[in-house]
């Protein structure tokens, strides 16, 4: 009986093979040349201000070059949650998929299935295994991002004492890359600074809030916290600003100016770093366009223009770099609005 159901679905599917062609050409966003390009952004999870900004940058780019923009994503940043959206993109024959991956390997099969169906895949912010994507747009080198945070925290605590890391999710490629570099940097250049704990807030505000409280409770001598995630640092700052450790524990990491403004003003946080996520999304969208309309193929040495940002060259491993990280503090934070 179940076979009958499947059979009926199958029959209707086969019988509608001609429907594909007609609906394909009449619908918007098919991958055939000279029609509108459809670019879909798939961040790690929705409801994250960092991705709101980056995806808005992507939207601006897509509108500039006249494509159709869409943003989809799961509620929580678990590896398998993104697969369904990748599948849907493959079904809809999206021209370009721009993804920030929750895990380097888990979504590979789905991505390759999409590429087989004709979609170009660009990763940004958090990469996958190089074999599953056409291009990776990185905000800066991993070493650079790690170094700026290590420098900030060691300077802030006087280069001696206990520090901890409040990360996002345990599998995120970018998080693990940065944490590795931070550990190496500390071991090589800061012998008196000890990393005592790494906790995961899963880019969830409540979890990060509670984890910060737990960190301070279990490590009473903690002097510094690095949080390389914009959700984590905002939650940690909020907890710190009402606790008696404010000013005694040095909090830094990657944060957006808007969410950190009040904490810099009230002294909870002295400085932190980031880049412009809007530019990152903008660049990624143009990269996807360049791939989808055939301007580049993603190999090293390819050049393409990214609207107002100028010309970019593809580096080794099909990686494109946006620039260098930027340090925000009390003097310059008012100049930014994102």
């Amino acid at each position, binding site marked *: 009986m179940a076979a009958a159901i499947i059979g009926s679905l199958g029959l209707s599917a086969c019988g509608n093979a001609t429907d594909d062609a007609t609906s394909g050409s009449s619908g918007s966003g098919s991958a055939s040349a000279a029609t509108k390009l459809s670019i879909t952004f798939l961040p790690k999870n929705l409801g994250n201000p960092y991705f*709101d900004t980056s995806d808005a940058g992507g939207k601006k780019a897509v509108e500039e070059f006249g494509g159709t923009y869409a943003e989809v994503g799961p509620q929580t940043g678990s590896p398998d949650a993104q697969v369904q959206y990748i599948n849907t993109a493959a079904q809809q024959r999206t021209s370009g998929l721009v993804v920030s991956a929750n895990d380097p390997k888990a979504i590979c099969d789905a991505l390759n299935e999409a590429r087989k169906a004709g979609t170009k895949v660009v990763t940004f912010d958090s990469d996958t295994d190089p074999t599953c994507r056409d291009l990776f747009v990185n905000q800066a080198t991993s070493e650079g991002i790690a170094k700026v945070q290590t420098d900030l925290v060691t300077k802030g605590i006087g280069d001696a004492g206990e520090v901890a890391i409040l990360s996002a999710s345990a599998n995120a490629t970018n998080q693990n890359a940065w944490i590795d570099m931070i550990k190496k940097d500390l071991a090589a250049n800061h012998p008196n600074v000890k990393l005592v704990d790494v906790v995961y807030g899963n880019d969830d505000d409540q979890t990060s809030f509670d984890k910060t409280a*737990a960190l301070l*409770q*279990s490590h009473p001598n903690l002097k510094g916290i690095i949080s390389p995630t914009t959700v984590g640092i905002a939650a940690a700052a*909020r907890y710190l600003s009402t606790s008696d450790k404010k000013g005694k524990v040095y909090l830094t990491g990657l944060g957006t100016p808007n969410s950190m403004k*009040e904490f810099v003003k009230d002294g909870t946080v002295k400085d932190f770093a980031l880049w412009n996520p809007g530019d990152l999304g903008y660049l990624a969208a143009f990269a996807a366009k360049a791939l989808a309309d055939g301007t580049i193929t993603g190999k090293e040495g390819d050049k393409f223009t990214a609207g107002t940002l100028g010309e970019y060259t593809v580096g080794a491993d099909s990686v494109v770099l946006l620039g260098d990280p930027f340090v925000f503090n009390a003097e310059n934070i008012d100049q930014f609005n994102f």
Partner: protein
Amino acid sequence: MTPTDTTTHEEAAPEVLLHPSRMPRGRRWLTTLLRSRELSILLVLLLVIAVATIKTPSFLFSSNSWRDLLLTPSILILLAVGQAVVIITRNVDLSVGSVLGLTAYLTGRLFIDHPSLPIVAVVLIGVLAGAALGLVNGLLVGFGRVPALVITLGTLYIYRGIVLTWAGSDRINASDLPRDFLALGTKQVLGFPVLFLVAFVVLAVVGYHLHTARSGRELYAIGSDPDAAVLYGLRVRRRLIAAFVLSGALAGLAGVVYTARYGTVSSDAGSGIELQAVAAVVVGGVAIFGGSGTVWGAALGAVLLVTINRALPIVGIPDFWQQALVGVLILSAIVLDRVLSVRRARQLIESRDDA
């Protein structure tokens, strides 16, 4: 039939079980207290705190820790009290997590869209919204002849879907809320956090009502034997609806408290907390089959669960194992309840045969 006859069987059937009204009031009260499940949970709780404090004195003895120890369970206490009332009637309310999410988001939205509303008004609206959602549950269970498990399973989906559709990926941020409201999250009065005091007052009122008022005690009767309650003439439907309205209202209050405590609300706030509430209630001595247990036990169960979560990393167990521990606690509680009730039934039968 004389009291002296039963004394020979004292070791098999304690006096307080058979002839409680014959004991002097003070002694009866003391015996009940000492044999109570609530006391044993309190002892376990104190033990956990003691072990953690020995390892790291700042677990208890820093101003923040004391505050956090009482503040963090406040939300779960509110949910556990409501859930206990429902479970006592031999039902269950799985939708409380979604109700919490909905009212938490509603609270934030009210502050953003109507900044002139006083805090008291927003709190009231939140509670009433929760009560309304609970009323839906109550009506469906009372009139629908369908087990509460299924109804609240459905409303869990529906309410969560409403929040997700309403909020989308939008979040309420702490910066959107009024200062004084957020301050409630950390303010203390006489050394006790305000939010904890709220939970405690609710607990006391509900606990007193269940113990002394007729409508409260009837809930126990309904849970013990619903058919007998109907035959006896109790207004079962009305009590059931009231129980669900209470559970919903407390979940609504918990949503407001959540917003005050965390300041940030996303559309998946409160996801999964309903099972924690049921766990707290079961661990706290309320039989899943209804008819027994107190809200005090449920509240203690809630505090115990949250405190264990905090204490584990200090003792060196990564808090990943917390949920497994909770599972063991629930199973032990149920098995213990079963063993005790079987033994008690046997004792009662024996003494009846001997009398």
